[in-house]
């Protein structure tokens, strides 16, 4: 499979690799995928007010999944939570020129953003949290 220049760039120089303290009340963590499926994405956000001031990721998956999550962290940094939630996988597909078989890698990145934001929100309203 031939990879686009941008996928190769994110794969070779992934942005924002790492972890934030998942127990901190200002940090939201999203983990999506499953090892048996060949992909697990962990995306974390550090929030001040309603703005994402930092983002980190770690991904087990193909090159396109790594690139999608790296790009996602780049995009959400500096955005408000609502702006981050508005990011769609199709924008990632377009930016990285992903072929059809790799679309789900971008879906995973979108899901990871949503999961991280939701995790942060649930920490702010602990009473509404279930289980």
């Amino acid at each position, binding site marked *: 499979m031939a990879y686009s220049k941008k996928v190769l760039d994110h794969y070779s120089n992934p942005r924002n690799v790492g972890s934030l303290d998942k127990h901190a009340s200002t940090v939201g963590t999203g983990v999506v995928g499953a*090892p048996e499926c*060949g992909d697990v994405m962990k995306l974390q956000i550090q929030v001040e007010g309603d703005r994402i001031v930092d983002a980190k990721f770690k991904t087990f998956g193909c090159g396109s999944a790594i690139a999608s999550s790296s790009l996602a962290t780049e995009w959400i940094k500096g955005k408000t939570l609502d702006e981050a939630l508005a990011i769609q996988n199709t924008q990632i597909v377009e930016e990285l020129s992903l072929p059809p078989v790799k679309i789900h890698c971008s879906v995973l990145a979108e899901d990871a953003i949503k999961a991280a934001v939701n995790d942060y929100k649930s920490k702010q309203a602990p009473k509404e949290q279930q289980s």
Partner: protein
Amino acid sequence: MKLPIYMDYQATTPCDPRVVEAMLPYFTQSFGNAASRNHRYGWEAEEAVEKARGQIAELLGANPKEIVFTSGSTESINLALKGVAEMYAEKGKHIITCQAEHKAVLDVCKHLEQQGFEVTYLQPDKSGRVSVEAVAAALRPDTILVALMWANNEVGTLNPIREIGALCHEKGVLFFTDATQAAGKVPVDVEADHVDLLCLSGHKIYGPKGVGILYVRRRNPRVRLVAQMDGGGHERGMRSGTLNVPSIAGLGKACELARLELPQESARTSALRDHLEKRIFSELDFVHLNGNREHRLPNNLNVSFAYVEGESLIMGISDVAVSSGSACTSASLEPSHVLRAMDVGEDLAHSSIRFGIGRFTTQEEVDFAASSVIGAVRRLRELSPLYEMALEGIDPKTVNWQAPH
């Protein structure tokens, strides 16, 4: 050192220059049809074909008359399985094979199932091996054929061919073995090993692509086949079609070289393979050998690098040409059916790489490949949430993952 380094010798091999040399005269000078009986052109072509038949037979311990030329192992497998099934259908309709066979065998078996045959797909053990006991237990009065590969193309595991062959002969059941990966790598002797039908392919043994053979036993027992290609009645009626003389000459030469050089080559490639294995296992944690340490091809190494996904790893070692067992299930590529049959676990199946060492592999290349793989695995593990968990002492297998997408 030429990049990328070729380490995919189980997929195919380059032609040995000595093979190419043996082929050349048959393109432009002695280009006759081996079936032309009336002139020198035909005689020369026939002579080349008969010489090759002898060279191939000698590698297998067979009689030259037992060699049928085909276009490769896929065709030989079709001819053997369908040919036997159709010829012996009145005797019985049961066939035994294994889940870890090459797709060519599995797909032909599926086809035969649609024709009313019954197929038992034995599950190999965790190392990819089928035991004689498992075959014995699956045999039935209506079993007509046992089809089991000599060496597995992904993990290199060798089946106990001699024991299985002896069992089949004792029970009067025909025994076919796919020796595509084994021929030229480990000693083959159709008599001592009790093999009735066997295939090999030129392009896996430094010969040309698109040529192979089916060995068909002529005595004790005499195996009969229904031809799958009708026409001029070539190859004693078993495979019609004008013979591909240059390729056949090349295949003959390739088999001769394989026979003469087998002991040295097997020692040399296994030493290189062991070196690669040792470096990987001593410089990385969480690595698993897929296959059987004792019973395996000298030139194969299949390793799973836990917590690193295969496709991204291949991307990280673009200067080394290897194969991966899989990519993500959601993509078009499925995890390898061989690793699945071996019960390796889906997570490890996604992390597997097959290294193939060959006649032209050097120590320098092996070291380059080892360093490149080790570096890429370390880098990808920095990125891997699963590796992070493992280091924290959490086994990702015990985590309750959300429903797979």
